[in-house]
């Protein structure tokens, strides 16, 4: 799981082209959207595309569940692990 979290941090930096932030500075438990890392809805879409491509997963048809998945790096890793397994 730690490895997956690390990969997701790297993906966040590369997919969102964050120039002033490195993967190590992202706290796995901090909020990703608005507070914390300060990502917005467009970042969430871009990140969803990158995660879909990398792990072959699909996000939920329910945006409320997607918001929960994007709560933190840890939550995203759990979502990816779960949906990769059920593919």
């Amino acid at each position, binding site marked *: 799981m730690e490895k997956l979290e690390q990969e997701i941090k790297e993906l966040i930096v590369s997919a969102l082209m964050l120039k002033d932030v490195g993967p190590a500075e992202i706290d796995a438990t901090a909020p990703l959207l608005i507070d914390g890392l300060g990502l917005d809805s467009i970042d969430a879409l871009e990140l969803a595309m990158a995660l879909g491509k990398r792990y072959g997963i699909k996000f*939920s048809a329910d945006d409320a569940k997607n918001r929960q998945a994007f709560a933190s790096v840890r939550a995203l890793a759990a979502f990816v692990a779960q949906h990769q397994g059920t593919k």
Partner: protein
Amino acid sequence: MAWMAPHRFDLFSGVAPDALVAVGSAGSRTFADLFADARAVAARLPAATEGSEVLVVCGDRYHFAVGLSAAWQAGHAVALPPTSQPAMVAKLAANPAVRFLLHDTDARDGLDLRALLGTEWSTSATSPITFEPSRHVVTVYTSGSTGAPRAVRKTAAQLLGEAALMATTFEISASDRVLATVPPNHIYGLLFGVLVPLSAGAAFVRETPLHAEAVQAFGRTHGATIHVSVPAHLRALAALEVTWPALRFVFSSGAPLDATTAQQLAQRGVAATEILGSSETGGIAWRRTDSNQLWQPLPGVRVGADATGQLLLESPFLEGSLGHAQPCADRIELVPGGRFKHLGRLDDVVKVAGKRIALGELEARLRVVPGVQDAAVVTLPTVNGRGIEVCAALVAPDCTPAAIRESLLQWLDPVVLPRRWRFVKSLPREENGKLTRARLLALFDEGRRDFEVKRREDRSGESIEIREVEVGVPRDLLFFRGHFEDAPLLAGVVQLTNLAVPEIRERWPDLGVLRSLARIKFRRPIRPDETIVLLLERSEHQPSVSFQIARRGEPCSSGTLLFAVGAR
């Protein structure tokens, strides 16, 4: 073709009362439901006076349509805020023209219209609303260069005329269902997401899904035939392998659609239809993205340009322009045959992922954040769906980006907030006080830092390469947030993983994975905004590098990093 202005505009005159106007997870509603709910809400509104407005802030499109119809039935115009952020709504609600606030949230003053829904009996009679063409129906408040929201007033002829024209031009009928990913408080989402379907007797989906999977599920479940979106959202949708079969139109606005997305959509059988327009001008032109990049003026709209390329517009949707072409904030190039290329805007208004922001407003809002002494913003293009990102340079010795962002979020959409921050002692103004884009951009330059390279020999005569570089510690390093809010420190692990290791990798790509650390010492804390010197030493061909981080000649940390032999 001369455009004949109708003598009056009717809304809902031809619709079947039992036809659906709204569908979605929150339930279906008929036009009869809409009339009944609008009557119930209208009865609670104050009497209309000259110029009176009702501010409507609703996330659910059916609630929005009820608020709109109620305000119009009661004789008011509808005020739409640039964003639904709390301070923005409160500020507009305090505007003297705004007599009342209708919303569908738990958190606001004003009237939560959800409490009134379903309280009036629906009847089988229609309730058309008749408008004089010159009646003021909507004020769109939008981001303006001065910082204050700019009021753009629309008459019935302009707004309802445009909705009817779009419905006719694109043959939108009562059997269509519209799914929009853009909210109804901006002109594009208002027209295509609400007024065009209302005008055509069609239905809209109440919700505004974001993620591509959710958009697709709503589209399929509710049988959407028309999709209203922006390039940043379409990019994600087009990347999904399947789309829904019944789709007749995909509308896009707010920014040019990139070629890849356009192509992917076309391969799924729906070429995107792009709309060019603005709050001020209304719709100007459209194009099918599969054909070419030229814009076709909408029926009744005449487009010209002066010698500098400034758009001269004659349009039934632009006040006072028929017969008197008005200069607009766009730059265009006409091509023979009446079509044109759009070259950009002349003012400081930009679109971030389709969301409008005047850079002047952003700077004005930054400057009034407590602790901010001076501020300037500049935009850089990005290759993702955002299109551009905003970079802010600030003189604000005691502020953190997190605190400034929180303050801006009271007013602005998260998407338009600065994504990059530079804290400086003073803005790089020229002698005459002017700030140029070039000098601002230099603050965000990605260029490699200059290393000073020296060599020395150790006792055994081995050559040691020494690299020294000065590094500013950016205040936005995320590590400064959260745990150490009051006394932020650059943690030891971050010094290694974010300063020392990346520089080592950049200089000596032959080194393998990091194996171990030796003699690591952290002696003095490093704080944001400090300038530190990173010193790296490596004996020739040895897989280890010694580092030292010093501040004003005093070592803060040091140690040796041992790497595997051979590149990673």
